[in-house]
């Protein structure tokens, strides 16, 4: 293992190990949450969820997921201003995460397709997706909602 690991303290998870590449600067913070330094912390590489954890507030962590795992035809359309803010060109492949609202059972889980988090070059922006069909609360497990009660 050659990468230099660093750690940070989380009230939720205790001491968490971090690769420097996982650190993301959010110049404008997350909408309504503030804070400019976060890290993307994966549970394991194949896990469906990761955590966007504040490096400034040990108690602030948001579960996030890769939207394309759940919505194969998901599209992100950005305003010119957001495109410029993100700074990625057409050939680049910025990372895209969406926040997850957890619930006591799977049928209540949803994710925010309207305001994805786009990360490029170590900088992150929560942007407003202008594509149609991008609800703020998209059910993550619609099949759980329609399945008959066991």
């Amino acid at each position: 293992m050659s990468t230099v690991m660093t750690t940070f303290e989380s009230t939720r998870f205790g001491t968490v190990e971090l690769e420097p590449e996982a650190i993301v600067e959010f110049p404008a913070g997350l909408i309504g949450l503030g804070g400019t330094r976060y890290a993307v912390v994966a549970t394991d590489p194949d896990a469906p969820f990761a955590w966007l954890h504040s490096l400034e507030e040990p108690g602030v962590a948001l579960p996030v997921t890769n939207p394309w795992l759940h919505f194969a035809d998901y599209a992100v359309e950005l305003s010119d201003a957001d495109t410029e803010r993100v700074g990625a060109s057409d050939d680049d492949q910025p990372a895209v995460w969406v926040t997850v609202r957890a619930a006591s059972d799977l049928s209540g889980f949803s994710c925010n397709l309207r305001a994805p988090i786009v990360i490029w070059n170590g900088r992150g922006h929560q942007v407003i997706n202008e594509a149609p069909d991008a609800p703020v609360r998209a059910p993550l497990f619609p099949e759980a909602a329609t399945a008959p009660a066991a």
Partner: protein
Amino acid sequence: MLIITRKPGEKIMLGDDVVIHVMEIVGNSVRVGIQAPRSLPVYREEIWDAVREENRAAASVAPDALPAPAPAA
């Protein structure tokens, strides 16, 4: 709160860098132009509010609702 009256074509300055341009009034709608530095995101309030609500709800997830990251070795 500052409350002022403007006519179409008039503007409001927020500091030196942000310009609110009252463009036209049609029926009960006001068309507004906003010039702001790129570093200052501009949102419709109801969208900002909905996203803030989702961010807060996401951040308040119960500790055991989702798997935790691997603990430091």
